[in-house]
C-alpha cells in the first residue's frame, strides 16, 4: 500500500512537470491550431537561461528563474513575430513544419553556448531531501513542480473562462476572420500565446533542472513526452493538459513499478515500459475518445 501511494505521488510530481510543459503547448494550439514541436527547445532554453543567470550571473536563484521565464516569454514572442506571423493562412502542415524547423534552429543556437553538450546541475536553493510522511516521500523540487502547476492551472482557468482577452483568444481559434471583424487583434493574440507558452515552458525547464539536472537531450525529450499528455487531456483544454500530464506521470511510474515484469515475460527484454506506455495509451485514446478527456469536439454540420 505504501508502495502504491509512493508510486502514485511520484507519478503525480513528474506529471506536474509534464503538465507545466503541456500548458504552453495547449495555449498555442488553443489560439492558433498550431502544434508546437519546438516546445522541448523552449523548455531547454528556459532552463539554461535560469542556470546562466544564477550561476554565471550570480543572481539569486528565484530572481534568475523569474528573469529566465520572462526572457523565454520574450523569445516566444520573437518567434511568433519573426516566423509564425508570416505563415498565417498557410496550410497546417507548413506551420507544423516551421515549428520543427524552428526546433532545429534553436538546437543549433544552443550549440553555440556551452550548454550544447554536457550536463549541468542547477544550484540548490531548496533544502536537500524532502517531505516524508508514513514512508511516502516527496522531494522539495517535486513539491515545487506541484505548486507551480496548481498556480498556473488556476491562473489559466481564470484567464480563459473569465477574462475578455482569454475568451477572444478562444474566439480567434474558432474563426480568425470573424474575430478580426469585431476588432480582435489576431496578431496580438498569437504573440501573447507564444509569449505565455515560452513562460510556462521555462517554468517547466527550471523545475526539471531542480529535479534532475540539465541536459539538452533530456530537456528536449520532455517536449516529446508532452504529446501523450495533451492527447489524453484534449489538445485544447487547460485542465486537460494538467490532468493528462498527471495521468501520464502516474502511468509511467506505475509502468515501471508493475508492468516491466510482465513485458519481460512476453519476451520483450529490458522493461522500460514507461517509455512506450504513454504512446500506447495515446493510440488507444485516439481510438476511443479522439478528442481526449476534455478537448472540444469539432462542431461539424453539413
Amino acid at each position, binding site marked *: 500500500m505504501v508502495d502504491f501511494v509512493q508510486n502514485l505521488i511520484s507519478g503525480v510530481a513528474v506529471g506536474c512537470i509534464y503538465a507545466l510543459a503541456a500548458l504552453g503547448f495547449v495555449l498555442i494550439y488553443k489560439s492558433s491550431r498550431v502544434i508546437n514541436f519546438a516546445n522541448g527547445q523552449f523548455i531547454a532554453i528556459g532552463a539554461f537561461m535560469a542556470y546562466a543567470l544564477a550561476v554565471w550571473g550570480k543572481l539569486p536563484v528565484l530572481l534568475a528563474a523569474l528573469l529566465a521565464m520572462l526572457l523565454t516569454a520574450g523569445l516566444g514572442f520573437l518567434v511568433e513575430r519573426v516566423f509564425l506571423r508570416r505563415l498565417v493562412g498557410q496550410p497546417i502542415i507548413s506551420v507544423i513544419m516551421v515549428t520543427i524547423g524552428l526546433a532545429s534552429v534553436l538546437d543549433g543556437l544552443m550549440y553555440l553556448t556551452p550548454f550544447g553538450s554536457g550536463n549541468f546541475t542547477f544550484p540548490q536553493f531548496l533544502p536537500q531531501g524532502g517531505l516524508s510522511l508514513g514512508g511516502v516521500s516527496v522531494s522539495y523540487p517535486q513539491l515545487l513542480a506541484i505548486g507551480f502547476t496548481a498556480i498556473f492551472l488556476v491562473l489559466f482557468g481564470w484567464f480563459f473562462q473569465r477574462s*475578455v482577452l482569454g475568451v477572444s483568444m478562444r474566439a480567434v481559434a474558432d474563426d480568425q476572420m470573424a474575430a478580426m*471583424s469585431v476588432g480582435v487583434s489576431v496578431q496580438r493574440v498569437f504573440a501573447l500565446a507564444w509569449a505565455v507558452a515560452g513562460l510556462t515552458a521555462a517554468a517547466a525547464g527550471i523545475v526539471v533542472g531542480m529535479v534532475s539536472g540539465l541536459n539538452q537531450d533530456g530537456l528536449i525529450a520532455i517536449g516529446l513526452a508532452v504529446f501523450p499528455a495533451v492527447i489524453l487531456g484534449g489538445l485544447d483544454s487547460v485542465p486537460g493538459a494538467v490532468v493528462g500530464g498527471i495521468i501520464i506521470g502516474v502511468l509511467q511510474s506505475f509502468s515501471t513499478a508493475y508492468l516491466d515484469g510482465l513485458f519481460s515475460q512476453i519476451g520483450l527484454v529490458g522493461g522500460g515500459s514507461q517509455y512506450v506506455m504513454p504512446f500506447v495509451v495515446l493510440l488507444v485514446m485516439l481510438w476511443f475518445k479522439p478528442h481526449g478527456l476534455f478537448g472540444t469536439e469539432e462542431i461539424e454540420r453539413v
Partner: protein
Amino acid sequence: MRPEDLGNILLEVNNIEVVYKDIIQVLRGVSLKVPEGQITALLGPNGAGKTTTLRAISGLLVPEDGKVVSGSILYRGENIANKPPEQIVLKGIVQVPEGRRVFKHLTVEENLRVGAVTRRDGAKVREDLERIYHYFPKLALIRTRLAGYCSGGEQQMLAIGRALLANPKLLLLDEPSLGLAPLLVREIFDIVAQINAEEGVTVLVVEQNARVALSVAHYGYIMESGRIALEGTREYLETNPDVKEFYLGVAKSGGRKSFKDVKSYRRRKRFM
C-alpha cells in the same frame, strides 16, 4: 435626390479598386456614399463585389490577401483604406461577416463578450449586453448554449448582436437574410430598422433579397461586376422597371410572376 440630401455623409468610398492575391481584380472603381443615421442598401448579383466592398471598408481584406490598390475610403473625412481591421473597429465601423461566422465553440454570451473586446468601459458593456438581449430576446434564453449548435436565425442574431456590442457608429451587414426563413428575415430586418431608428446607428447592408432590403433602406446602390450600375432612393429604385423586373420579380403585368414560367433564355439588363 443624392445621398447628401439624406444627411451628413459618414462614409465616402471614392473610386476604389480592389485586387485579391495581387492578381484578381474585383472592384473596378466603386464609389458610394453612406449618409449618417440612415440605412443604405447595396444590391447586386453574385460575384458583383458587394462583399469585397464591405471588406475594403472594414479592413477585412487582410485575411483574404486582398488590397485596395487605388481610390480612397473616407470615414468622417479620414482615409481608412488598408488600415488594419482592429483600428477600424475602434473608429466605430463594424462588419457582420457573410455567412454568420459565429464562434462555434463559444457560448452565446461569450460570443457577445468577444464583441466588446475593444472596449474599455467595462460597466457599460454589461448594460449593453442587456440591451442586446432586449432586442433579441431569443438570445437571452440560450445564453449558455454553444453557438455552433444554434439554428441559422439564432446565429444571425448573434452575429449582429456581437457586432453591436462593439459600439458601432456604422454597421456593415453582409447578407443577413442568407439561409433564413421568411419569418426570421422579416424579424431581423425589423430589428435592424429599430436599432437604426432608436440608436441612430448608420447601416450599410448588402443583400440579395432586394425586396426586404429596400423595405427598410433609405437609399440604395446596385452593383454589377465591380461597378456601381444604379443608385437612388428607395422610392426611385422601387419604381425603376429594371429593378422591378430583375430584383423584385414583378412581372410586366404588375403581379408576381410565377417561377414556372421562367423563360429559358437570358435577357440583357438594360443598364449593363
